[in-house]
């Protein structure tokens, strides 16, 4: 029981990372980005290719993050920025991200020949850390540490730094931010880049956990990310971490007490249920106080 709770937290750690990336994009750009699932995949593939070319793991991870960040920025600079400038409806933006998702996904599928690739995990932490009678896999422990660290850094950055304030201003109103001297496009690009990096990080942890990687791995993670931000309140940094951990626990307890079959369905049920009952998320803040 205690072990299963630890399992839930371990599972939730990666979910939190996912949620942080989406919440940042959502909070700043107000875009529900389906292409995010492919940022996850492209980032992980970037790391895979780097590792295969004998780049040390730590640098390979950084390369993967940069790849996803650059892809995310590229998509934003081309498709999204163009649409934003024309004042396209959020409706059309969502659909465009679905289109981008499909393009990126089919390219990844083609490049990987639809194969499930082996993700070398030699350079990642393995084994587990025993705490009393429970044990926590080192990989998940690392991912937990990183997501909490990212939460703290993001929180500090957004609330305590000049650039963070500018980001929140852009998130609230880009035209106003521009009037105050903020280059809103640069801020958008920065937020999108960071969000892409976080997507990659989550994808890399996921790949290392399963030692495999395929072009479709991001799909389920995207749904998880959506569930996390709905649970935690869209646009809330703290909520993303809490939401991630909560979802991990819910999934593990569902597996334990109901069936592993439903751990997937419960994710969607949570999204629908929370949206119906508390559209601002279980741990969410009011719309005005986002990011």
């Amino acid at each position, binding site marked *: 029981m205690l072990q299963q709770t630890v399992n839930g937290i371990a599972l939730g750690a990666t979910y939190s990372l996912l949620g942080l990336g989406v919440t940042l994009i959502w909070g700043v750009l107000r875009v529900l980005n389906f292409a995010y699932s492919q940022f996850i995949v492209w980032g992980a593939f970037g790391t895979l290719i780097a590792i295969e070319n004998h780049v040390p793991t730590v640098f390979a991870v950084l390369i993967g993050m940069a790849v996803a960040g650059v892809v995310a920025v590229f998509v934003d600079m081309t498709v999204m920025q163009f649409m934003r400038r024309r004042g396209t409806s959020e409706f059309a933006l969502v659909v465009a991200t679905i289109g981008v998702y499909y393009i990126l996904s089919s390219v990844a599928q083609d490049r990987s020949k639809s194969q499930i690739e082996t993700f070398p995990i030699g350079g990642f932490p393995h084994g587990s850390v025993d705490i009393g009678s429970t044990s926590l896999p080192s990989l998940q422990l690392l991912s937990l540490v990183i997501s909490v660290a990212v939460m703290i850094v993001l929180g500090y950055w957004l609330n305590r730094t*000049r650039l963070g*304030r*500018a980001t*929140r*201003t852009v998130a*609230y*109103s880009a*035209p*106003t*931010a*521009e*009037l*105050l*001297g*903020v*280059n*809103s496009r640069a801020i958008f690009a920065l937020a999108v880049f960071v969000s892409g990096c976080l997507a990659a990080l989550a994808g890399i942890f996921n790949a290392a956990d399963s030692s495999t990687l395929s072009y479709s791995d991001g799909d389920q993670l995207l749904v998880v990310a959506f569930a996390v931000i709905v649970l935690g309140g869209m646009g809330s940094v703290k909520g993303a971490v809490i939401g991630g951990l909560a979802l991990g626990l819910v999934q593990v307890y569902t597996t334990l007490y109901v069936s592993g079959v439903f751990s997937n369905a419960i994710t969607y049920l949570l999204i629908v249920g929370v949206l119906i009952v508390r559209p601002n998320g279980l741990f969410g803040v009011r719309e*005005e*106080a*986002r*990011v």
Partner: protein
Amino acid sequence: MLVLENLEVRYGKIRALRGVSLTVPDHAVVAVLGPNGAGKSSMLKAISGTVRPFAGRILWNGTDISRMAPHKILRLGIAHVPEGRAMIAPLTVEENLQMGAYITPRSEIDDMQDRMLELFPPLKARLSTTAGSLSGGEQQMLAIARGLMSKPKLIAIDEPSMGLAPAVANDVLAALAAIVQTGTSVLLVEQNAALALRLAHDVVVIGHGEVQAAGTSEELGHDILAAYVE
């Protein structure tokens, strides 16, 4: 010195400005008067880069800024306090002020903030309140103070008196008068002509997107009051 040359602004098929020319000299207060929908706000938006002009030029100390991004124009010294105050509601008053000083050198920010709080005393007590929960008058003060935090050479203010009680409007006006003393030019857009005339040396009247009349407040004062204000 700010010079507008035949400025034309369009929104789709609608021509909001149809060739406006005017000059704002250094250390001057120019009031732009006119009825609702005359194109006053569009003019300010064009100056600050929020809207790209369809035709014409905007020269700032000889530089053409008519196609520049707003954040670059601010760096050249033109601040724009838009209509409706554009509060960043989720940020606190202090954070709003800090945002106003986004381009100001770090060493001068604290000093600027102290001066703004001196200029607008009601803000002092509300520094850690979110801007969204301020009263209309306080929001207007914050908007102007935020605009001044960037130490502009010219500040363009859109309808500062809108929605304010007369007493509050007077306070805001008094603060504006103090700004002028520091050497900052003011381009003031107002519907409340009586208020504007008290502050401005020069007056431009805009109607239907065109300049209807221009001159000093003494020259135009009575006519304007008669024509545009009951």
